[in-house]
């Protein structure tokens, strides 16, 4: 039918063609061209490999093995066997026939030894075929005669593979919460899942930290082998041969401790049950002398029954090393987790090409969703997202066409907003600092008021921080709308600002604590390593007789608040909001406008990061903090799961899963580095208190924490000492830093080179494609010519 029509048109001559006929001719030509093109394309070597049952990638791999052999193979089959002037149906049949005949390399090529055979059977797994086909191929491979050489290599590999399978089987059963994950995923998709996965990862991190800290500090402390119960009962170190000043420091420590314990007993004995309960919240009073805080630990000297003399467990050293190990473990786990994210993000931005639309369309539907309601939501969200992206694109076009005047106005607005944000940040920080200082004054004024009021006053700095952390991000979110950024960038910049707020508030707290603990004060006597040992002038400000425990208490209070406030808020705000919405949203427009609770992913993640930062900062002063974080993570998982499944709807603009995970880890990493700072500074410069803790017995006049390690090194043989001394000198540090910088630069340059190469290769690909089109068009012309 095609032919006859075309013949008729040629008879009439091109001049007599009507417009519709012309269109029809063009259509026919197009169809003809397409089918004949398809027939040619089906014979291309790349298509052959694709259509072979081995699939594209396996076929590609196989054809690389023996290129020469396959070359001959394919050359024979390359003679074009397309009949000229064929009909549509014939062409289609031709395509089908070519598809069925596999000209790719046979699957048993290159299989010589038994190891090869085994490897080939393993690679069957990667075939894109049904189980039936795979089985067929596997049997084919196994039937090939092979040399049974190097059997041991094959057996080794097989054993290793089996071992891996077994461990995977076992580990799969131990996975925590996988059932809950599936439930959430089915309803909300993968972007909300990243939050819960992050929570689980933090749980395990806290578990390791807990094991390290408690194992090295608390466990030796409570072991019952003739240990002295309190420092006051510790035996004097033998002073045979040691310098006289050693005893001096020990005496000093004894006296300070006596004073401190007397002071504490005075306080706690005059307290009733109510105050004792309040003390639990604050960590003061009876809690101050428990294992919870740094204060009780000291160097234990055991006298074991069968061993001559006495053994001393150097609690100070183990304390320092435990803290160091905890930070190292955290660092290692963080780097491991962020490596995964870095790899995928480098791939993403590697060639510098954005594929957001393809990503959304082909990877947009979450195949995990199993819930009808969630599916409807997902459809709605996808449409909104696609519309949003299309609008973004139009916006981008508009931005390119912005006039200079508009740009100037926009930039000035942005400068103003940034200044306002900075103002808010500085204001909040000053508020925290002020609250800390006011605390002292308030304590002075209300020294003899009801204990509950006292507790409230104690909690004032922590409450200030928590309130600011809730209110200021809302203000930031409103402000960022004035700046007219792209929506994704808006989210990122709000997140960045909130992170700065949280970390800065913690740093300010640390700073004000530092001011209290290390600076000299007028009203206080400096003694026993504490700047606020005793009050002069009969002020009612409380002295701090053990500053490490005091810092630990502040952090403990923050953690308690951090646990209670979101917990209470969830039950007070989120559940009632849902009930109100369900009952009233048809009647009252206001309720409808307020809408349902959306799961605020960035805020939830920031909460987790904040808890972890508190944990890292307080590790040293209160070894139980990892355990408290662990318990909090565990309980919050169930609370959050409940609220997400019952009260929340899907976020309207979900975070991209891949990018969000690396963002969370990056924020966590920044917090980690910031919490390392105060710790290292403290260990290097501040003197410990002489009335409490494992460092109370000085060895030199201006003892600092780090001297414990220095003393340890002094006990090593002199060669080892020299080796360690090198670490402290400049001769080590400057070359080390130089070398690290050099390697970083080298890898950066390499990455830039790879990007460029990828770009060049892509251009080559495009050119090849264009060549192919050109050649196909020529072939078609040739046919048409022969045809006509």
């Amino acid at each position, binding site marked *: 039918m095609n032919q006859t029509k075309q013949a008729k048109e040629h008879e009439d001559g091109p001049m007599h063609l009507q417009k519709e006929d012309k269109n029809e001719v063009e259509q026919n030509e197009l169809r003809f061209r397409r089918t004949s093109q398809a027939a040619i394309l089906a014979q291309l070597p790349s298509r052959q490999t694709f259509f072979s049952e081995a*699939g594209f990638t396996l076929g590609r791999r196989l054809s690389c093995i023996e290129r020469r052999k396959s070359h001959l193979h394919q050359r024979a089959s390359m003679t074009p066997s397309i009949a000229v002037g064929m009909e549509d149906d014939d062409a289609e049949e031709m395509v089908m026939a070519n598809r069925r005949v596999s000209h790719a390399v046979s699957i048993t090529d290159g299989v010589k030894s038994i190891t090869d055979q085994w490897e080939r059977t393993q690679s069957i797994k990667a075939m894109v075929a049904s*189980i039936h086909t795979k089985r067929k191929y596997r049997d084919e491979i196994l039937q090939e005669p092979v040399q049974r050489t190097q059997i041991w290599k094959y057996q080794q590999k097989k054993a290793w593979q089996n071992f891996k399978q077994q461990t995977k089987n076992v580990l799969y059963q131990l996975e925590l919460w996988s059932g809950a994950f599936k439930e959430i995923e089915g309803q909300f998709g993968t972007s909300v899942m990243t939050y819960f996965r992050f929570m689980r990862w933090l749980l395990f991190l806290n578990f390791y930290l807990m094991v390290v800290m408690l194992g090295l500090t608390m466990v030796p402390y409570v072991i019952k082998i003739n240990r002295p119960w309190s420092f006051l009962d510790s035996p004097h170190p033998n002073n045979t041969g040691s310098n006289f000043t050693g005893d001096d420091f020990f005496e000093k420590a004894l006296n300070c401790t006596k004073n401190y314990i007397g002071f504490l007993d005075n306080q706690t004995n005059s307290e009733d049950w109510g105050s004792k309960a309040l003390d639990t919240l604050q960590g003061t009073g009876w809690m101050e002398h428990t294992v919870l805080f740094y204060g009780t630990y000291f160097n234990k000297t055991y006298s074991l029954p069968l061993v001559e003399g006495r053994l001393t467990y150097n609690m100070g050293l183990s304390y320092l090393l435990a803290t160091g190990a905890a930070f190292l473990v955290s660092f290692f786990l963080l780097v491991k987790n962020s490596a995964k994210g870095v790899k995928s993000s480098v791939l993403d931005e590697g060639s510098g090409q954005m594929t957001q*639309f393809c990503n959304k369309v082909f990877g947009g*539907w979450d195949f*995990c969703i199993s819930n009808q309601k969630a599916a409807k939501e997902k459809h709605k969200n996808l449409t909104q997202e696609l519309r949003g992206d*299309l609008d973004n694109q139009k916006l981008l076009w508009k931005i390119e066409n912005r006039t200079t005047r508009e740009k100037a106005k926009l930039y000035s607005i942005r400068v103003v907003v940034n200044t306002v944000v900075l103002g808010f940040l500085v204001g909040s920080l000053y508020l925290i600092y002020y609250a800390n200082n006011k605390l002292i004054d308030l304590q002075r004024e209300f020294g003899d008021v009801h204990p509950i009021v006292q507790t409230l006053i104690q909690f004032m700095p922590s409450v200030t921080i928590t309130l600011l952390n809730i209110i200021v991000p809302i203000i930031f979110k409103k402000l960022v709308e004035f700046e007219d950024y792209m929506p994704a960038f808006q989210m990122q910049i709000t997140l960045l600002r909130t992170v700065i707020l949280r970390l800065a508030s913690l740093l300010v707290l640390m700073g004000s604590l530092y001011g209290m603990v290390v600076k000299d004060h007028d009203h206080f006597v400096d003694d026993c390593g504490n700047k606020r040992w005793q009050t002069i002038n009969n002020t009612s400000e409380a002295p701090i007789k053990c500053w490490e425990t005091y810092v630990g208490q502040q952090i403990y209070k923050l953690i308690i608040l951090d646990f209670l406030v979101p917990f209470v808020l969830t039950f007070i705000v989120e559940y009632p909001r849902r009930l109100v919405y369900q009952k009233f949203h048809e009647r009252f427009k206001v309720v409808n406008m307020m809408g349902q609770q959306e799961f605020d992913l960035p805020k939830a993640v920031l909460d987790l990061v904040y808890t972890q930062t508190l944990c890292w900062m307080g590790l040293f002063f209160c070894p139980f903090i990892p355990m408290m974080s662990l318990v909090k993570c565990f309980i919050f998982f169930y609370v959050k799961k409940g609220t997400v499944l019952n009260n929340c709807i899907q976020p309207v603009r979900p975070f991209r899963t891949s990018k969000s995970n690396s963002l969370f880890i990056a924020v966590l990493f920044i917090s980690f580095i910031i919490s390392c700072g105060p710790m290292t500074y403290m260990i290097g410069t501040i003197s410990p208190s002489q009335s409490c803790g494992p460092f109370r017995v000085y060895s030199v006049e201006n003892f600092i924490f780090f001297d414990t390690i220095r003393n340890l090194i002094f006990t090593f043989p002199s060669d080892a000492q020299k080796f360690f001394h090198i670490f402290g000198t400049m001769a080590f540090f400057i070359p080390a830093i130089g070398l690290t910088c050099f390697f970083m630069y080298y890898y950066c340059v390499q990455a830039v080179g790879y990007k460029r190469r990828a770009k060049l290769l892509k251009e080559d690909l495009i050119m*090849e494609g264009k060549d192919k089109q050109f050649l196909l068009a020529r072939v078609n012309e040739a046919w048409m010519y022969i045809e006509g």
Partner: protein
Amino acid sequence: MGGSQSVFSEQELSDYQELTYFTKKEILHVFKRFQTLDPDSVERDKNAKLNRETILKLPELQVNPFNDRITTVFSSAGDGCMTFEDFLDMMSVFSDNAPKNVKVEYAFRIYDFDEDDVISGKDLREVINRLTGEQALNDEEMEQLIQNILEEADLDDDDSLSFAEFEHVISKAPDFINSFRIRL
């Protein structure tokens, strides 16, 4: 659990373990899910062929906009009926352990609605319509979207995506590997 274990011999289980991305326990779990779709037929014959409607009773597939394409692609007979082996195959490809290239190839076949081995503009239109569901995009938006996709992915300017182009663009789409999976 004990019941389904006696259905397969040890040899069959290790066979399946070798040919799919599942462990033995996971295979048994998949069989349990398969059984719940139509307990009577599977009781009688563990390799029973279940028709498309029965397979689509699985909750994960029921709400999926591409469920008919999935059943067609994975069914060995080509008409949407699946035996247990087909079902296992499907779940294996959608599992976490399947390598990316396998998922990409199957995704290509699923998105190729007219089965002409390229994802043409028509296929794209169908994919987008399925994705958006009830709130379809209007013509202008659809055109803009299709143009964008072809601009990003079509390297040889033939207004359709061949497998190589599809694979190339998916390798730069980080969300694909996360969303193209079903966990049983």
